[in-house]
């Protein structure tokens, strides 16, 4: 019983011990190309020169390898062996190479194909005349051991990769046919026996080379400074199948040379959100881009709008118009567009789901830069989407695919790429910029907002007071310490003609007002937010912060709020 137990316990060790004295492995090891040692085999192109080593791995700790001869055949339509081989044997070793043209090994079907010594030593296999195949016979003998480590290369070879035609089958076009390995260090030669000289792990190279396309390909995605490009990625598809998902760097750049590799296949690039952790497209970008000032701006353009109204003449920028054109009929800015935007800002999410794909947009830089209000009105074709088909100029040394981006609802373009001034003056004309830790905003003027907070018994109260009489819209995003406060309500004291809104997330409250009656929100309007505080909270310091804000004047132009 004890013996059985010990045997079971030690059985895995027996297996391991057995494998460590199990002859020798011979393998073809790919070492990149002569120009790029790190290039993977899958990226090898026609006209590359690849480096292949014959690797011998001695698994027998009772013997040393001092002699080897290995035969390798290759298809001459697919490969031409070039340059001088580099022997990796000890310096005093005697080496030799014999080559035969138009010869191929007929495999010995009585033994495993990777049983290299049996393939040759037992009857059943033979070399026969075969056009288009060559065989090299690599032999070395040494007084000192070689092939004594995992990567004990016998010899390194170079092959020029050829275009054998589209009908050619590249399977096993470089192939180890047979091998003899021996130990001559003792009084008599020890030949590694049949069954113990195996082609492993790689007996053959079967790669179908890529086209000889040497153009460097890259993508650049331009974004507004409020949009961090590292939170975007590009998905490359080849004939509809994804071949890469590549994040942009901080400049919006990414190299795609390794993935767009054929002139006959169709490649597309799709922009996708790549935020992680607490990143959130909706709260970080969309909700900050699509705000009440955008609604006010669009309302001034459309019939029955807020402010003084000036239908058809307020929005002069084509991209602005596209961002506000959210309802049918398209390519017209209508009160229905403004109404839909208002619905969204008031808290009814018009995108529902898949927010990025439904609201983020990109276009080729040249198209984006050239797009005017005239193009918008005339319904000119404009591919403003997340997917574009890549059509490289393969004769060029490099191809750079450049895009610009925007967000639907961002009518005043605070989260969208800029157009060149030569296209059309972006509207509204910004004169004031305010930068915070979370965003930059530009507007035509400023308005004061008094803010304070205090503890009253078990409540924490935040109060904001508008100090301007020229605002028709205001919006605030306030972050509170949700570990210590529970949000109760917002009380609005903004006048009778004002539409107020508020909705609360886990730790962020979005609230504000818009006057749709062509009148300003009354001066000294107040927003009073009430929270219930935890019993242990004895200080108001740091319990809230204002994260983002937004406001518009009577013309629908963006106003920068200055808190005091």
């Amino acid at each position: 019983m004890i013996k059985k137990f010990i045997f079971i316990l030690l059985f895995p060790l027996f297996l391991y011990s057995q494998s460590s004295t199990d002859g020798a492995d011979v393998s073809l090891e790919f070492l990149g190309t002569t120009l790029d040692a790190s290039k993977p085999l899958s990226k090898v192109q026609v006209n590359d020169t690849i480096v292949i080593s014959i690797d011998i791995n001695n698994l027998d700790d009772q013997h040393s390898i001092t002699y080897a001869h290995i035969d390798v055949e290759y298809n001459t339509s697919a490969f031409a062996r070039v340059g001088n081989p580099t022997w990796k044997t000890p310096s005093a070793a005697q080496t030799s190479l014999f080559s035969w043209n138009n010869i191929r090994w007929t495999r010995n079907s009585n033994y495993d194909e990777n049983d290299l010594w049996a393939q040759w030593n037992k009857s059943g296999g033979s070399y026969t005349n075969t056009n288009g195949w060559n065989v090299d016979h690599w032999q070395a003998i040494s007084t000192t051991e070689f092939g004594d480590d995992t990567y004990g290369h016998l010899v390194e070879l170079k092959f020029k990769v050829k275009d054998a035609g589209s009908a050619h089958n590249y399977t096993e076009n470089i192939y180890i046919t047979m091998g003899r390995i021996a130990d001559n260090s003792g009084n008599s030669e020890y030949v590694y026996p049949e069954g113990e000289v195996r082609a492993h792990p790689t007996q053959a190279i079967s790669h179908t080379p890529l086209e000889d396309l040497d153009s460097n390909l890259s993508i650049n995605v331009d974004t507004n400074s409020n949009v961090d490009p590292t939170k975007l990625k590009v998905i490359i598809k080849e004939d509809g199948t994804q071949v890469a998902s590549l994040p942009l760097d901080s400049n919006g750049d990414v190299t795609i040379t390794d993935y767009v590799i054929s002139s006959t296949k169709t490649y597309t690039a799709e922009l996708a959100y790549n935020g992680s952790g607490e990143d959130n497209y909706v709260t970080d970008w969309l909700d900050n881009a699509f705000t009440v000032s955008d609604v006010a701006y669009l309302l001034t353009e459309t019939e029955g709008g807020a402010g003084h109204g000036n239908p058809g003449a307020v929005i002069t920028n084509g991209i602005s118009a596209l961002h506000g054109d959210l309802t049918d009929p398209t390519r017209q800015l209508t009160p229905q567009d403004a109404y839909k935007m208002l619905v969204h800002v008031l808290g009814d999410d018009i995108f529902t789901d898949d927010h990025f794909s439904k609201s983020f947009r990109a276009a080729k830089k040249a198209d984006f830069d050239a797009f005017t209000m005239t193009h918008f009105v005339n319904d000119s074709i404009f591919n403003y989407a997340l997917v574009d088909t890549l059509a490289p100029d393969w004769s060029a040394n490099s191809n750079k695919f450049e895009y610009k981006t925007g967000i639907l609802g961002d009518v005043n373009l605070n989260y969208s790429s800029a157009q060149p001034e030569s296209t059309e003056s972006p509207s509204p004309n910004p004169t004031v910029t305010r930068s915070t830790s979370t965003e930059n905003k530009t507007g035509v003027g400023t308005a004061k907002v008094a803010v304070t907070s205090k503890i009253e018994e078990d409540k924490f109260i935040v109060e904001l007071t508008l100090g301007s009489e020229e605002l028709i819209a205001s919006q605030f995003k306030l972050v509170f310490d949700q570990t210590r406060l529970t949000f109760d309500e917002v009380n609005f004291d903004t006048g009778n003609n004002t539409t107020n809104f508020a909705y609360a997330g886990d730790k962020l409250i979005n609230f504000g007002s818009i006057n749709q009656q062509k009148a300003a929100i009354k001066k000294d309007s107040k927003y009073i937010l009430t929270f219930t505080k935890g019993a242990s909270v004895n200080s108001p310091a740091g319990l809230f912060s204002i994260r983002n804000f937004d406001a518009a004047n009577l013309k629908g132009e963006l106003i920068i709020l200055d808190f005091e």
Partner: protein
Amino acid sequence: MKKYLYPFMALAFVGCMRDIKEDIQYPIEQSLTINEATGLKFEGPSINDASQFNFKVETGGTYYIVVKDHLKNVISKSEIKTNIGDNVLRFYTNAIPDGDYFIEFKDPQDNVIESNKITIQ
């Protein structure tokens, strides 16, 4: 009837008594001790959630704590009631992004009484 009246009156008397207020004076941590008559001291140049600070004043009353980001934008403002002398309170940071901030203590006339630059981690 009297046997019910006396206990009831006794309860009412006790219930209407003024609470005995035990005004415990906790010692101020050494790191927050201010030797001068007035001053402001945080636990260090970097603070985290619920760190303490000491705002020492000669005149008690209402003051405002104003938090400004590194671009000098006001992002938070709070009213506090102070006593004469040391006022040790907590500064909560869960609602404020990590970064450098200017903290100003102002009187009701908007005069800056004390200010400090801190890093929230």
